[in-house]
């Protein structure tokens, strides 16, 4: 009789495993102890080994599928032997869209089993055509039709996105010709464990903080020059505007920080929308500067002034204070040297701006007076790890210390 191959608990805390790769294929001879597959556990990628001799008769779950411990993943037996239930008995594998799925294995002797929902995209024929033409990945679209099917209405904004990008004629440095506003990446086992453990440790969002001191001398000079050029026609550029622009451009280079935590996946945004914390009479609101990476300083200045004004008068529309992908909070005007801001979920990060103060700093063997800014980034550890945040801050610091870098 054929022997079942189960998903085994390969670590003490493992509850489910993602079948990364089958190292043996249907029809291959196997001996007890042979590695059958690579399985990603909550800690690492481990090997699933054969517990019987014979032939790998049937593979029950395709690569990329997450399977609870104990479920049957394959059958081993004598060549030609019948397999119980032929898949019908196996519990339905739990699967998520797998954009990072590897190329399918080329040789398979037996007919392939494809679980109904692993590869199938639920979309109307019309939606499929539009998506193909516009270049939208339907797996990333939330469907509003029956049973979550993607219908034409769900794609109505999709064609507009690239059109806006071309209209502003600003080359999108890092994301190039990408047409979707974001990409959803399912949580891998390590990320799931990090999310669970760290959330349990501090509130629902496990914050951590990174502080850096930035030399604002050149940014200040640039600001003075720009404002002089703008002259009396108004529309002065503030430090905050420069910081928003720099943050947006740095996010373009560090997409890992431009993301939303969505419980079972992380949404990495291809668009940069900066939330700008504005103190109002009885609270705080964060109007959003959309596509801040593609806007000129002058546009950002005008928009932030206008939004802040309306925010104080409580005249913002809901779409004007929602949908930010990252936020900036500034208490510099209140003479705060340094502070930590609280993340506005589902965003994964926020930078807190202190006041710009003249300080004596060593310059070689002399001491010079420079205008300095202390900036603290709060990170959601479920999305951003220490090093990820640090490299982002490094780019941001370089941009502010050498504003010409923003032109690159």
């Amino acid at each position: 009789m054929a022997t079942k191959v189960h998903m085994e608990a390969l670590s003490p805390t493992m509850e489910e495993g993602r079948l990364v790769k089958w190292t043996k294929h249907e029809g291959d001879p196997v001996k007890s102890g042979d590695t059958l597959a690579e399985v990603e556990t909550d800690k690492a990628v481990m090997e699933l080994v054969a517990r019987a001799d014979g032939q790998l008769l049937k593979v029950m779950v395709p690569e990329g599928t997450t399977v609870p411990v104990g479920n049957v993943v394959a059958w081993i037996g004598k060549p030609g032997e019948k397999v119980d239930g032929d898949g019908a008995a196996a519990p339905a594998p739990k699967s998520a869209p797998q954009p990072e799925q590897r190329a399918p294995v080329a040789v398979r002797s037996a007919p392939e089993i494809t679980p109904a929902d692993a590869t199938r995209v639920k979309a109307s024929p019309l939606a499929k055509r539009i998506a193909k033409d516009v270049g939208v990945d339907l797996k990333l679209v939330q469907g509003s039709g029956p049973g979550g099917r993607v219908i034409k209405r769900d794609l109505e904004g999709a064609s507009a996105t690239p059109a806006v990008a071309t209209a502003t004629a600003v080359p999108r440095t890092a994301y190039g010709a990408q047409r979707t506003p974001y990409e959803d990446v399912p949580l891998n086992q390590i990320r799931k464990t990090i999310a669970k453990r760290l959330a349990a440790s501090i509130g629902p969002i496990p914050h951590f903080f990174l502080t850096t001191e930035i030399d604002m001398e050149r940014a200040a000079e640039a600001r003075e020059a720009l404002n002089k050029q703008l002259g009396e026609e108004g529309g002065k550029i503030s430090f905050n505007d420069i910081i928003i622009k720099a943050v947006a451009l740095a996010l373009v280079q560090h997409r890992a920080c431009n993301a939303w935590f969505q419980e079972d996946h992380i949404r990495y945004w291809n668009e940069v929308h900066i939330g700008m914390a504005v103190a109002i009479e009885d609270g705080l609101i964060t109007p959003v500067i959309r596509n801040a990476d593609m806007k000129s300083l002058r546009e950002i200045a005008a928009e932030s002034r206008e939004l802040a004004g309306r925010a104080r008068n409580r005249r913002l529309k809901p779409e004007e204070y929602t949908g930010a992908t990252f936020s900036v909070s500034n208490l510099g005007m209140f003479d705060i040297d340094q502070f930590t801001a609280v993340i506005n979920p589902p965003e994964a990060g926020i930078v807190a701006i202190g006041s710009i103060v003249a300080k004596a700093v060593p310059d070689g063997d002399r001491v010079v007076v420079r205008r300095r800014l202390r900036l603290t980034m709060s990170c959601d550890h479920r999305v951003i790890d220490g090093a990820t945040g640090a490299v982002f801050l490094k780019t941001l610091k370089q941009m502010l210390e050498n504003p010409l870098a923003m032109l690159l």
Partner: protein
Amino acid sequence: MLRPYPNEPGSFVANFDVIILGGGPAGYICAIRSAQLGLSTAVVEQDKLGGVCVNIGCIPTKALLHSAYIANLLKESKDFGVEASGVKTDYGVAMKRSRRVSDQNSKGVEFLMKKHKITVIKGTGVAQPGKKVKVGSDVHEAKKAVVIATGSRVKGIPQIGLEINKTTVISSDEALVLERVPDSLVIIGAGAVGMEFADIFQAFGVKVTLIEALPRILPIEDAESSDVLAKSYRKRGIDVIAGAKVTKATVGKDKVTLDIEVGSEKKQIVAAAVLMAAGRAVNTENIGLKECGIQLTDRGFIKVDKNLQTTTPGYYAIGDVAGPPMLAHKGFREGAVVAEIIAGQKPPPIKYDNVPSVTYCHPEVASIGLTEDQCKEKKLDYVAGKFPFSANGRARGTGETEGFVKILRDKKYGEILGAHIVGAHASEMIHELAVARENEYTVEEIDLAIHAHPTMSEAIGEAALDSLGRVLHI
């Protein structure tokens, strides 16, 4: 549901979850769906259950149209090798048969109310504040909602002297119960109602003149559909006058004289009777709308939001009173959807742009979506695919070669922007396109579905192919 104070007039009588004013299509479906969802439901109806549709609309006219079809068929039967001599028509007999059909349907609705344990309250309901409905001296209270489904009625044009007098100036209400047909009849309005009665009365030997104010008959249909029908009607001897304005009407005891203007031309028509088939008035008077704070639109319909709730929370409106199109099947859907909303569900929104429109004249006219003129107005990039029934084997076999199928395809993605069918059984065939549009199938999925041969429906597949430049049978 006990009467707490049985002898006191005007006393509070019973509590229901939902009280529906009107037992027409929208109302009775709303009642059935509400009952299915476990709500205690009452329907208030002053006349017969089933409303205009069952009693003086959709259903009896279909019975009469079939009589007309048989009369016309017998005129040609010799060609088919069947000689029917001495064929006589008797409208009175056809009318009585149509009444029986209506009564059966109305009884059917009564049975459905009983089956679902819905309380039918006979009388005229008046909505009152606090989700109450007064019927006579009794006041009923709805715990969840009051649904207004009072429908619409025929209307005359008193401004030009054409007030319905029920003898020489009649409406469909009277036309449906005539014992004898008049010698001659002018029908004012060539929408669905006017077209159907022109078909019926012509078959029963009446000299029919059909007058339409807009430039073509069946003004809401595709211009090509109007053309086929105008041609077909004229061939049969119906005088079709479109773009005509009635300037004066002189109503006599046994005749009516109409002065009409067609462009710069002036004409006078004399007929034994005039049938008013131009528009309907909604029943929004004397049902307590104002007292409940329920507002109307500029056009006189009850103002509703996307959940069909009126301007007063807890009061909903469905069917004709809630706005156009004034069609029973639109009312059906609104009735079901409102019941689900009241029960706390979130039904998918109604697609008002995907409501089929059908006129049951011969040949039938059915359509869904945009007309070709609307595509042009919206500056859409479209391709029209067309297939005539004269090239369809089944249609040739039955001698029903009039008409066509036309599909308007979006050039870029193949979306079915609109579809128009003129021909025998068009009313049955349109649903292939309704399902296709509802599911966002493109013309290619229509073609991929294998159509049985020989059928009239093959023309749909061919029209889809024609829109792709690949028509096979022409």
